Protein backbone atom coordinates (compact mmCIF):
# COMPACT_ATOMS: atom_id res chain seq x y z
CA UNK A 1 0.00 0.00 0.00
CA UNK A 2 2.94 2.23 0.25
CA UNK A 3 5.96 3.05 -1.76
CA UNK A 4 9.11 4.45 -0.43
CA UNK A 5 12.29 5.18 -2.19
CA UNK A 6 15.55 6.61 -1.19
CA UNK A 7 17.25 8.90 -3.56
CA UNK A 8 20.85 9.70 -3.15
CA UNK A 9 22.23 12.00 -5.73
CA UNK A 10 25.75 13.23 -5.74
CA UNK A 11 27.06 15.90 -7.96
CA UNK A 12 30.44 17.42 -8.13
CA UNK A 13 31.71 20.27 -10.11
CA UNK A 14 34.95 21.78 -11.15
CA UNK A 15 35.29 25.00 -13.01
CA UNK A 16 37.87 26.66 -15.16
CA UNK A 17 37.06 30.33 -15.30
CA UNK A 18 38.36 33.00 -17.57
CA UNK A 19 37.21 36.56 -17.41
CA UNK A 20 36.32 39.57 -15.41
CA UNK A 21 34.57 39.94 -12.12
CA UNK A 22 30.87 40.68 -12.55
CA UNK A 23 29.73 44.21 -11.80
CA UNK A 24 26.58 45.08 -9.84
CA UNK A 25 23.51 43.96 -11.72
CA UNK A 26 21.40 46.90 -12.89
CA UNK A 27 19.65 44.93 -15.61
CA UNK A 28 16.37 43.58 -14.26
CA UNK A 29 15.12 41.53 -17.22
CA UNK A 30 16.17 37.93 -17.81
CA UNK A 31 15.20 35.54 -20.58
CA UNK A 32 16.27 31.92 -20.59
CA UNK A 33 15.79 29.45 -23.40
CA UNK A 34 16.48 25.76 -23.00
CA UNK A 35 16.18 22.61 -25.10
CA UNK A 36 16.60 19.04 -23.96
CA UNK A 37 16.75 16.08 -26.30
CA UNK A 38 16.96 12.60 -24.85
CA UNK A 39 17.33 9.45 -26.87
CA UNK A 40 16.64 6.09 -25.26
CA UNK A 41 18.18 3.08 -26.96
CA UNK A 42 15.35 1.11 -28.66
CA UNK A 43 12.67 3.10 -26.80
CA UNK A 44 11.52 6.71 -26.64
CA UNK A 45 12.91 9.95 -27.92
CA UNK A 46 11.89 13.16 -26.22
CA UNK A 47 12.35 16.85 -26.96
CA UNK A 48 11.56 19.53 -24.40
CA UNK A 49 11.59 23.27 -25.01
CA UNK A 50 11.40 25.81 -22.19
CA UNK A 51 11.28 29.60 -22.26
CA UNK A 52 11.52 31.52 -19.01
CA UNK A 53 11.16 35.26 -18.53
CA UNK A 54 12.03 36.94 -15.22
CA UNK A 55 11.79 40.51 -13.98
CA UNK A 56 13.65 41.57 -10.86
CA UNK A 57 11.80 44.28 -8.94
CA UNK A 58 13.31 47.23 -7.08
CA UNK A 59 12.66 45.79 -3.63
CA UNK A 60 14.59 42.60 -4.38
CA UNK A 61 11.53 40.56 -5.31
CA UNK A 62 11.31 38.78 -8.67
CA UNK A 63 8.49 37.46 -10.80
CA UNK A 64 8.89 34.89 -13.55
CA UNK A 65 6.74 33.17 -16.14
CA UNK A 66 7.73 29.95 -17.82
CA UNK A 67 6.44 28.05 -20.82
CA UNK A 68 7.23 24.35 -21.44
CA UNK A 69 6.50 22.26 -24.48
CA UNK A 70 7.60 18.68 -24.92
CA UNK A 71 7.03 15.79 -27.28
CA UNK A 72 7.78 12.13 -26.58
CA UNK A 73 7.59 9.53 -29.29
CA UNK A 74 8.88 6.03 -29.86
CA UNK A 75 8.36 2.72 -28.14
CA UNK A 76 7.23 2.75 -24.53
CA UNK A 77 7.11 -0.52 -22.52
CA UNK A 78 3.51 -1.70 -22.13
CA UNK A 79 4.13 -3.84 -19.05
CA UNK A 80 3.87 -7.27 -20.69
CA UNK A 81 6.78 -9.72 -20.47
CA UNK A 82 8.98 -10.63 -23.38
CA UNK A 83 8.08 -13.99 -24.93
CA UNK A 84 9.59 -16.56 -27.30
CA UNK A 85 6.74 -15.96 -29.76
CA UNK A 86 5.42 -12.88 -31.57
CA UNK A 87 2.90 -10.98 -29.45
CA UNK A 88 -0.02 -8.81 -30.54
CA UNK A 89 -1.54 -6.02 -28.44
CA UNK A 90 -4.69 -3.97 -28.76
CA UNK A 91 -4.09 -0.23 -28.82
CA UNK A 92 -5.69 1.97 -26.17
CA UNK A 93 -8.30 3.17 -28.67
CA UNK A 94 -9.49 -0.45 -29.01
CA UNK A 95 -9.67 -0.18 -32.78
CA UNK A 96 -6.19 -1.28 -33.87
CA UNK A 97 -3.29 -3.44 -32.75
CA UNK A 98 0.49 -3.57 -32.89
CA UNK A 99 2.88 -6.52 -32.88
CA UNK A 100 6.07 -7.20 -30.98
CA UNK A 101 8.64 -9.68 -32.26
CA UNK A 102 9.63 -12.75 -30.27
CA UNK A 103 12.24 -12.15 -27.56
CA UNK A 104 11.78 -8.38 -27.71
CA UNK A 105 10.58 -6.07 -24.97
CA UNK A 106 6.83 -5.49 -25.49
CA UNK A 107 6.55 -1.80 -26.21
CA UNK A 108 3.89 0.34 -27.82
CA UNK A 109 5.67 1.83 -30.83
CA UNK A 110 2.61 3.88 -31.75
CA UNK A 111 3.10 5.95 -28.62
CA UNK A 112 3.28 9.74 -28.94
CA UNK A 113 2.59 12.31 -26.29
CA UNK A 114 2.77 16.08 -26.23
CA UNK A 115 2.66 18.34 -23.18
CA UNK A 116 2.33 22.07 -22.73
CA UNK A 117 2.76 23.82 -19.40
CA UNK A 118 2.79 27.32 -17.93
CA UNK A 119 4.22 28.19 -14.55
CA UNK A 120 4.25 31.43 -12.62
CA UNK A 121 6.51 32.10 -9.66
CA UNK A 122 7.14 35.00 -7.33
CA UNK A 123 10.22 35.26 -5.13
CA UNK A 124 9.71 37.60 -2.20
CA UNK A 125 12.67 38.90 -0.21
CA UNK A 126 11.14 39.55 3.22
CA UNK A 127 14.36 40.73 4.82
CA UNK A 128 18.09 40.19 4.48
CA UNK A 129 17.80 36.66 5.86
CA UNK A 130 14.39 35.43 4.80
CA UNK A 131 13.01 34.71 1.35
CA UNK A 132 9.66 33.22 0.31
CA UNK A 133 9.17 31.60 -3.09
CA UNK A 134 5.64 31.07 -4.39
CA UNK A 135 5.02 28.92 -7.44
CA UNK A 136 2.11 27.57 -9.46
CA UNK A 137 1.70 25.60 -12.67
CA UNK A 138 -0.80 24.27 -15.16
CA UNK A 139 0.22 21.41 -17.40
CA UNK A 140 -1.81 19.88 -20.22
CA UNK A 141 -1.53 16.67 -22.21
CA UNK A 142 -4.22 15.23 -24.45
CA UNK A 143 -5.03 12.72 -21.69
CA UNK A 144 -3.87 14.56 -18.56
CA UNK A 145 -4.36 17.89 -16.80
CA UNK A 146 -2.33 19.02 -13.81
CA UNK A 147 -2.70 22.08 -11.56
CA UNK A 148 -0.27 22.75 -8.75
CA UNK A 149 1.01 25.35 -6.30
CA UNK A 150 3.67 25.58 -3.65
CA UNK A 151 5.53 27.87 -1.29
CA UNK A 152 9.10 27.60 -0.02
CA UNK A 153 10.77 29.44 2.88
CA UNK A 154 14.52 30.06 2.89
CA UNK A 155 16.04 31.35 6.12
CA UNK A 156 19.73 32.30 6.33
CA UNK A 157 21.80 31.89 9.48
CA UNK A 158 25.43 32.38 10.53
CA UNK A 159 26.15 35.37 8.27
CA UNK A 160 24.54 33.62 5.26
CA UNK A 161 26.72 30.53 5.51
CA UNK A 162 23.75 28.33 6.43
CA UNK A 163 20.34 28.34 4.75
CA UNK A 164 17.45 26.33 6.10
CA UNK A 165 14.75 25.69 3.54
CA UNK A 166 11.31 24.20 3.87
CA UNK A 167 8.21 24.17 1.75
CA UNK A 168 4.85 22.64 0.95
CA UNK A 169 3.13 21.91 -2.34
CA UNK A 170 -0.17 20.56 -3.58
CA UNK A 171 -1.27 19.19 -6.92
CA UNK A 172 -4.56 18.24 -8.55
CA UNK A 173 -4.57 16.04 -11.65
CA UNK A 174 -7.28 14.83 -13.99
CA UNK A 175 -6.64 11.67 -16.01
CA UNK A 176 -8.73 11.01 -19.11
CA UNK A 177 -7.00 8.23 -21.05
CA UNK A 178 -7.72 7.24 -24.62
CA UNK A 179 -10.59 4.75 -24.59
CA UNK A 180 -11.47 5.39 -20.93
CA UNK A 181 -10.23 3.90 -17.65
CA UNK A 182 -9.56 0.13 -17.99
CA UNK A 183 -11.27 -2.06 -15.40
CA UNK A 184 -8.60 -3.55 -13.09
CA UNK A 185 -7.29 -6.99 -14.02
CA UNK A 186 -9.69 -7.45 -16.92
CA UNK A 187 -8.31 -9.20 -19.99
CA UNK A 188 -7.20 -7.19 -23.00
CA UNK A 189 -9.71 -7.80 -25.81
CA UNK A 190 -9.04 -8.09 -29.56
CA UNK A 191 -9.29 -4.85 -31.56
CA UNK A 192 -12.74 -3.90 -32.80
CA UNK A 193 -14.52 -5.63 -29.92
CA UNK A 194 -16.06 -4.25 -26.74
CA UNK A 195 -13.22 -3.11 -24.49
CA UNK A 196 -13.38 -3.51 -20.68
CA UNK A 197 -13.44 0.17 -19.77
CA UNK A 198 -15.14 2.11 -16.98
CA UNK A 199 -15.20 5.86 -16.38
CA UNK A 200 -13.97 8.26 -19.05
CA UNK A 201 -11.89 10.23 -16.55
CA UNK A 202 -10.81 10.32 -12.93
CA UNK A 203 -8.53 12.29 -10.59
CA UNK A 204 -5.40 12.00 -8.55
CA UNK A 205 -4.08 14.37 -5.92
CA UNK A 206 -0.65 14.85 -4.44
CA UNK A 207 0.72 16.96 -1.61
CA UNK A 208 4.17 17.15 -0.14
CA UNK A 209 6.54 18.83 2.27
CA UNK A 210 10.29 19.19 2.13
CA UNK A 211 13.04 20.25 4.47
CA UNK A 212 16.60 21.02 3.53
CA UNK A 213 19.83 22.74 4.31
CA UNK A 214 22.40 24.62 2.23
CA UNK A 215 25.77 24.90 3.91
CA UNK A 216 28.88 26.75 2.84
CA UNK A 217 31.81 24.54 3.78
CA UNK A 218 34.68 26.84 2.84
CA UNK A 219 35.35 29.54 0.27
CA UNK A 220 35.47 26.96 -2.54
CA UNK A 221 32.72 24.49 -1.74
CA UNK A 222 29.19 24.13 -0.49
CA UNK A 223 26.68 21.35 -0.04
CA UNK A 224 22.95 20.79 0.06
CA UNK A 225 20.82 18.10 1.62
CA UNK A 226 17.04 17.79 1.25
CA UNK A 227 14.40 15.43 2.51
CA UNK A 228 10.99 15.34 0.81
CA UNK A 229 7.85 13.48 1.72
CA UNK A 230 4.69 13.37 -0.32
CA UNK A 231 1.37 11.63 -0.38
CA UNK A 232 -0.46 10.73 -3.59
CA UNK A 233 -4.04 9.52 -3.66
CA UNK A 234 -6.76 8.74 -6.16
CA UNK A 235 -6.25 6.93 -9.46
CA UNK A 236 -2.54 6.09 -9.44
CA UNK A 237 -2.54 3.30 -12.03
CA UNK A 238 -1.17 3.69 -15.52
CA UNK A 239 -4.19 3.11 -17.80
CA UNK A 240 -1.98 1.88 -20.63
CA UNK A 241 -0.02 -0.74 -18.69
CA UNK A 242 -0.65 -4.49 -18.88
CA UNK A 243 0.53 -7.56 -16.98
CA UNK A 244 1.23 -10.93 -18.60
CA UNK A 245 -0.52 -13.97 -17.15
CA UNK A 246 2.06 -16.75 -17.19
CA UNK A 247 1.43 -20.49 -17.45
CA UNK A 248 2.91 -22.08 -14.33
CA UNK A 249 1.00 -25.37 -14.54
CA UNK A 250 1.56 -26.94 -17.94
CA UNK A 251 5.06 -28.38 -18.02
CA UNK A 252 5.09 -28.37 -21.83
CA UNK A 253 4.84 -24.56 -21.97
CA UNK A 254 5.96 -23.46 -18.55
CA UNK A 255 6.57 -19.72 -18.56
CA UNK A 256 4.57 -18.98 -21.72
CA UNK A 257 2.07 -16.13 -21.84
CA UNK A 258 -1.61 -17.06 -21.62
CA UNK A 259 -3.31 -13.68 -21.32
CA UNK A 260 -2.83 -9.96 -20.67
CA UNK A 261 -4.67 -8.03 -17.99
CA UNK A 262 -4.76 -4.33 -17.10
CA UNK A 263 -2.80 -3.36 -13.99
CA UNK A 264 -4.17 -1.99 -10.73
CA UNK A 265 -2.22 0.12 -8.21
CA UNK A 266 -3.22 1.15 -4.69
CA UNK A 267 -5.14 4.42 -4.43
CA UNK A 268 -2.75 5.73 -1.80
CA UNK A 269 0.99 6.11 -2.07
CA UNK A 270 3.67 7.64 0.15
CA UNK A 271 6.92 8.78 -1.34
CA UNK A 272 10.01 9.91 0.48
CA UNK A 273 13.42 10.77 -0.83
CA UNK A 274 16.71 12.27 0.14
CA UNK A 275 18.65 14.51 -2.20
CA UNK A 276 22.22 15.51 -1.60
CA UNK A 277 24.49 17.67 -3.71
CA UNK A 278 28.00 19.00 -3.36
CA UNK A 279 29.73 21.72 -5.38
CA UNK A 280 33.45 22.22 -5.47
CA UNK A 281 35.33 24.94 -7.29
CA UNK A 282 38.62 23.53 -8.49
CA UNK A 283 40.57 26.21 -10.31
CA UNK A 284 40.08 29.58 -11.92
CA UNK A 285 42.31 32.06 -13.69
CA UNK A 286 41.63 35.42 -15.27
CA UNK A 287 43.06 35.23 -18.75
CA UNK A 288 40.68 37.20 -20.92
CA UNK A 289 38.59 40.33 -20.44
CA UNK A 290 35.73 39.65 -22.83
CA UNK A 291 34.36 36.24 -21.88
CA UNK A 292 34.64 33.43 -19.40
CA UNK A 293 33.78 29.78 -19.45
CA UNK A 294 33.28 26.94 -17.05
CA UNK A 295 33.39 23.19 -17.28
CA UNK A 296 31.19 21.23 -14.92
CA UNK A 297 31.38 17.43 -14.67
CA UNK A 298 28.27 15.82 -13.23
CA UNK A 299 27.80 12.47 -11.53
CA UNK A 300 24.55 11.15 -10.14
CA UNK A 301 23.69 7.93 -8.41
CA UNK A 302 20.10 6.87 -7.71
CA UNK A 303 18.71 3.84 -5.95
CA UNK A 304 15.11 2.88 -5.36
CA UNK A 305 13.45 -0.05 -3.66
CA UNK A 306 10.59 -1.85 -5.37
CA UNK A 307 6.98 -0.95 -4.70
CA UNK A 308 5.46 -3.78 -2.69
CA UNK A 309 2.91 -4.41 -5.46
CA UNK A 310 5.51 -4.62 -8.24
CA UNK A 311 5.48 -7.96 -10.11
CA UNK A 312 7.05 -8.60 -13.51
CA UNK A 313 4.08 -10.87 -14.34
CA UNK A 314 1.31 -12.89 -12.71
CA UNK A 315 1.17 -16.68 -12.51
CA UNK A 316 -2.01 -18.38 -13.70
CA UNK A 317 -2.41 -20.67 -10.68
CA UNK A 318 -2.12 -17.89 -8.09
CA UNK A 319 -5.22 -15.81 -7.28
CA UNK A 320 -5.08 -12.28 -8.67
CA UNK A 321 -3.76 -9.94 -5.92
CA UNK A 322 -5.50 -6.74 -4.89
CA UNK A 323 -2.80 -4.67 -6.57
CA UNK A 324 -0.12 -5.40 -9.13
CA UNK A 325 1.92 -3.49 -11.68
CA UNK A 326 4.86 -4.51 -13.85
CA UNK A 327 5.93 -0.94 -14.60
CA UNK A 328 9.75 -0.99 -14.56
CA UNK A 329 9.69 2.39 -12.83
CA UNK A 330 8.29 0.68 -9.74
CA UNK A 331 10.95 -2.05 -9.66
CA UNK A 332 14.11 -2.11 -7.62
CA UNK A 333 16.97 -0.64 -9.64
CA UNK A 334 20.03 1.56 -9.63
CA UNK A 335 20.48 4.44 -12.02
CA UNK A 336 23.64 6.29 -12.94
CA UNK A 337 24.16 9.58 -14.75
CA UNK A 338 27.53 10.76 -15.96
CA UNK A 339 28.17 13.81 -18.08
CA UNK A 340 29.30 17.38 -18.19
CA UNK A 341 28.13 20.88 -18.83
CA UNK A 342 30.17 23.47 -20.65
CA UNK A 343 29.16 27.09 -20.27
CA UNK A 344 30.43 30.30 -21.79
CA UNK A 345 29.38 33.87 -21.08
CA UNK A 346 29.73 36.93 -23.24
CA UNK A 347 29.96 40.58 -22.17
CA UNK A 348 28.43 39.77 -18.79
CA UNK A 349 24.83 39.78 -20.06
CA UNK A 350 24.51 36.60 -22.05
CA UNK A 351 25.54 33.03 -21.52
CA UNK A 352 25.05 29.74 -23.21
CA UNK A 353 25.81 26.21 -22.17
CA UNK A 354 25.64 22.72 -23.56
CA UNK A 355 25.35 19.51 -21.60
CA UNK A 356 25.93 15.92 -22.56
CA UNK A 357 24.93 13.14 -20.21
CA UNK A 358 24.55 9.39 -20.31
CA UNK A 359 21.87 7.84 -18.12
CA UNK A 360 21.56 4.14 -17.46
CA UNK A 361 19.06 2.19 -15.38
CA UNK A 362 19.98 -1.32 -14.24
CA UNK A 363 17.60 -3.75 -12.56
CA UNK A 364 17.23 -7.49 -12.08
CA UNK A 365 17.03 -8.97 -15.59
CA UNK A 366 16.65 -12.55 -14.37
CA UNK A 367 14.71 -12.55 -11.10
CA UNK A 368 14.34 -15.72 -9.05
CA UNK A 369 10.60 -15.62 -9.60
CA UNK A 370 10.94 -16.25 -13.36
CA UNK A 371 9.71 -19.68 -14.40
CA UNK A 372 10.27 -21.93 -17.43
CA UNK A 373 10.58 -19.98 -20.68
CA UNK A 374 10.73 -16.70 -18.74
CA UNK A 375 14.24 -17.58 -17.61
CA UNK A 376 15.41 -17.12 -21.19
CA UNK A 377 13.98 -13.59 -21.34
CA UNK A 378 15.37 -10.30 -20.07
CA UNK A 379 12.73 -9.21 -17.55
CA UNK A 380 14.39 -5.85 -16.83
CA UNK A 381 16.20 -4.68 -19.98
CA UNK A 382 18.81 -2.07 -19.15
CA UNK A 383 17.72 1.42 -20.13
CA UNK A 384 20.41 3.48 -21.84
CA UNK A 385 19.76 7.12 -22.60
CA UNK A 386 21.76 9.95 -24.15
CA UNK A 387 20.70 13.38 -22.88
CA UNK A 388 21.64 16.57 -24.70
CA UNK A 389 20.83 20.02 -23.32
CA UNK A 390 21.35 23.52 -24.59
CA UNK A 391 20.63 26.70 -22.69
CA UNK A 392 20.89 30.38 -23.60
CA UNK A 393 20.41 33.23 -21.13
CA UNK A 394 20.15 36.93 -21.87
CA UNK A 395 19.96 39.75 -19.36
CA UNK A 396 19.21 43.44 -19.96
Amino acid at each position, binding site marked *: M*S*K*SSIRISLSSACYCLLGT*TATANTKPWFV*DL*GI*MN*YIEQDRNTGI*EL*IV*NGKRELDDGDAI*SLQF*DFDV*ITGATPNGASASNVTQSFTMASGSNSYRVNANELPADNTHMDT*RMAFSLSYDSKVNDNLQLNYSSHISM*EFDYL*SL*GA*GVEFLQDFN*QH*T*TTLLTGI*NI*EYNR*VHPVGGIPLPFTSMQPPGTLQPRGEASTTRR*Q*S*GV*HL*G*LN*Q*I*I*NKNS*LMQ*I*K*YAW*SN*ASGYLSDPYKLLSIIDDQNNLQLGSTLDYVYENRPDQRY*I*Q*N*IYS*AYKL*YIKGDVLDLSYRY*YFQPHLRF*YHQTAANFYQHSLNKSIPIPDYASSDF*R*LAKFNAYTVGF*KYGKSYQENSEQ*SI*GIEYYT*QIGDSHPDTAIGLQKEQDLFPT*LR*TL*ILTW*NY*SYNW
Partner: protein
Amino acid sequence: MYKKTIRVISSLLLTINLISCSNTNIEPWQRDILSKKEMQFNSNKIISTMDSHFYYSKEASSGGQGFSGGGCGCN
Protein backbone atom coordinates in the same frame (compact mmCIF):
# COMPACT_ATOMS: atom_id res chain seq x y z
CA MET B 1 7.15 2.33 6.43
CA TYR B 2 7.06 4.51 9.55
CA LYS B 3 10.24 2.98 10.98
CA LYS B 4 11.97 3.74 7.72
CA THR B 5 10.64 7.30 7.78
CA ILE B 6 11.86 7.79 11.34
CA ARG B 7 15.30 6.44 10.40
CA VAL B 8 15.53 8.76 7.40
CA ILE B 9 14.46 11.84 9.37
CA SER B 10 16.83 10.96 12.23
CA SER B 11 19.74 10.64 9.80
CA LEU B 12 18.86 13.97 8.24
CA LEU B 13 18.61 15.76 11.58
CA LEU B 14 21.92 14.28 12.67
CA THR B 15 23.58 15.46 9.47
CA ILE B 16 22.10 18.93 9.86
CA ASN B 17 23.25 19.03 13.47
CA LEU B 18 26.81 18.03 12.56
CA ILE B 19 26.97 20.57 9.76
CA SER B 20 25.56 23.34 11.93
CA CYS B 21 28.18 22.69 14.58
CA SER B 22 31.00 23.22 12.13
CA ASN B 23 32.80 26.51 12.49
CA THR B 24 32.41 28.04 9.04
CA ASN B 25 33.95 31.47 9.14
CA ILE B 26 33.90 32.87 5.62
CA GLU B 27 34.21 36.62 5.44
CA PRO B 28 32.22 38.51 2.79
CA TRP B 29 35.37 39.37 0.83
CA GLN B 30 36.19 35.66 0.62
CA ARG B 31 32.95 34.80 -1.16
CA ASP B 32 33.76 35.83 -4.70
CA ILE B 33 33.83 32.21 -5.87
CA LEU B 34 30.73 31.22 -3.90
CA SER B 35 28.80 34.13 -5.41
CA LYS B 36 29.31 32.92 -8.97
CA LYS B 37 26.11 31.83 -10.68
CA GLU B 38 27.39 28.35 -11.41
CA MET B 39 28.17 27.84 -7.72
CA GLN B 40 24.52 28.33 -6.72
CA PHE B 41 22.19 25.42 -6.16
CA ASN B 42 19.37 25.57 -8.67
CA SER B 43 21.20 28.42 -10.41
CA ASN B 44 19.68 27.48 -13.72
CA LYS B 45 15.95 27.02 -13.32
CA ILE B 46 15.44 25.80 -16.86
CA ILE B 47 18.00 23.01 -16.59
CA SER B 48 16.62 22.07 -13.15
CA THR B 49 13.09 21.89 -14.57
CA MET B 50 14.17 19.71 -17.48
CA ASP B 51 16.21 17.42 -15.23
CA SER B 52 13.32 17.08 -12.75
CA HIS B 53 10.88 16.26 -15.53
CA PHE B 54 13.22 13.71 -17.08
CA TYR B 55 13.93 11.89 -13.82
CA TYR B 56 10.30 12.06 -12.73
CA SER B 57 9.29 10.25 -15.91
CA LYS B 58 11.91 7.52 -15.43
CA GLU B 59 11.94 6.89 -11.69
CA ALA B 60 9.38 6.33 -8.96
CA SER B 61 10.46 9.08 -6.60
CA SER B 62 9.64 12.60 -7.59
CA GLY B 63 12.75 14.61 -8.01
CA GLY B 64 13.79 15.46 -4.47
CA GLN B 65 13.51 19.11 -5.40
CA GLY B 66 10.30 19.79 -3.55
CA PHE B 67 7.91 19.55 -6.46
CA SER B 68 5.14 17.09 -5.84
CA GLY B 69 4.16 15.39 -9.05
CA GLY B 70 6.13 17.10 -11.77
CA GLY B 71 2.92 18.07 -13.51
CA CYS B 72 2.88 15.24 -16.00
CA GLY B 73 1.06 11.96 -16.31
CA CYS B 74 4.24 10.09 -17.07
CA ASN B 75 4.51 8.36 -13.71
